[in-house]
């Protein structure tokens, strides 16, 4: 039972590294961006996990409830999700432009074109 409380952090670590693997090892730029959003999601999970309190409930005040989970991580992550999709859109925009200039979104093909 003691270890069960750590599973969330392990999943955070695993997801983080799955995303990171996609970013460093996959040559396809869109795949890299998908990996980046998995990476992001892992960080979101970490923050929300830290804010949880046993026996607490969501921080929306209600009569007769005294214990609430921490609202601060939730605020940070709430805005981060929307910022995340905006920056992902920016990344996708850059990928689309790269595809137009180089005719490819594969890393090695782009590098080859650059060397010429």
């Amino acid at each position, binding site marked *: 039972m*003691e270890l069960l*409380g*750590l*599973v*969330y*952090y392990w999943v955070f*670590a*695993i*997801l983080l*590294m*799955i995303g*990171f*693997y*996609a970013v*460093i*090892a*996959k*040559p396809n730029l*869109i795949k890299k961006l*998908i990996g980046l*959003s*998995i990476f992001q*999601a892992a960080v*979101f*999970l970490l923050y*929300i*996990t830290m*804010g*949880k*309190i*046993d026996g607490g*409930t*969501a*921080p*929306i*005040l209600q009569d007769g409830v005294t214990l609430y989970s*921490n*609202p*601060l991580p*939730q605020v940070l992550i*709430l*805005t*981060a*999700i*929307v*910022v995340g*999709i*905006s*920056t*992902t*859109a*920016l990344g*996708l*925009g850059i990928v*689309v*432009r790269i*595809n137009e200039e180089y005719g490819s979104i*594969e*890393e*090695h093909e782009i590098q080859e074109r650059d060397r010429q």
Partner: protein
Amino acid sequence: MIILFGVFLLALLVITALAIVRSESLFAAVILTGIFSLLMAANFFLLDAADVALTEAAIGAGISTVLFLGALALTGEHERGIATNRLLALGVVSITTLLVIYATFDKPRLGDPDAPVQQHVGPWYLEKTAELIDIPNAVTAVLGSFRGYDTLGEVFVVFTAGIGVLFLLSARTGWRPEDIEGVHAPEQGLRHYLVPRVVGRMLIPFIFLFGLYVQFHGDYGPGGGFQAGAIVASSVILYALLEGEKRALEALPMRVLQWLVAGGALLYGAVGVAGMLLGGNFLDYSVLASDPIAGQHIGIILIELGVGITVTGVLLCVFHAFAARGKV
């Protein structure tokens, strides 16, 4: 029991993430990303983060899929290359994973009320929300009032990202935002899927209405400008998918959208400046009305409105920019 459900969902999350990275078809990867987001939202919900789950739902269910598909349509849907330095990458990744997992043994257990993170500011916010702001949703109170500067910054990041996409995708080809309106053939839209069109058209007003509800009910329940912006944008995107971009742009022209992008951020800033003019600090809403608590209410509603307008504008601008790029 609930923690077991959570762990089960986490296991599914890891499987999905692995499948996303392994999948060679980017198209399948995008569909799996939708499932990933659903799992993420369910997990947030189990961890008491109703507001965050609502945001993830509003963004992940429609908009992120649509954006990725928009980019895929412009680039290509299959990975061609094989992973470079695969073994090296795997090695680095596995070692780092083990290191991070080793580090977690020193972390406080899930839900520990004595964890350091629970000792500071968090309890203070909960305590003071009832006293200083007097709205039930502590998340909205922290977002809008206690940490209004942060949120202002985030809104400007969203704003900048939207402007960035418009700049990038209007470069060189001589494409101007206004041109989108002219480039579409009239037979756009899901003309030959009759049933989805009829049902979808029926749903659009409800989605829009629900967006407004989330916007203005954000003080009392889960919701607020960020979620509402995404939901309203979803309803317009659905309209564009069903009826074609041209009709959507007739309803909400690009010019209006650009005004929305700037206007929301400006409204947020203007509320801050109004506070200064009335003798308070920047983003101090207490001076907006004779009663400080009423002033806080007015301030939070106004800045949430600003957030909602900017988010709607940016998401729609980005969507139209991708869609138009494909047709030029």
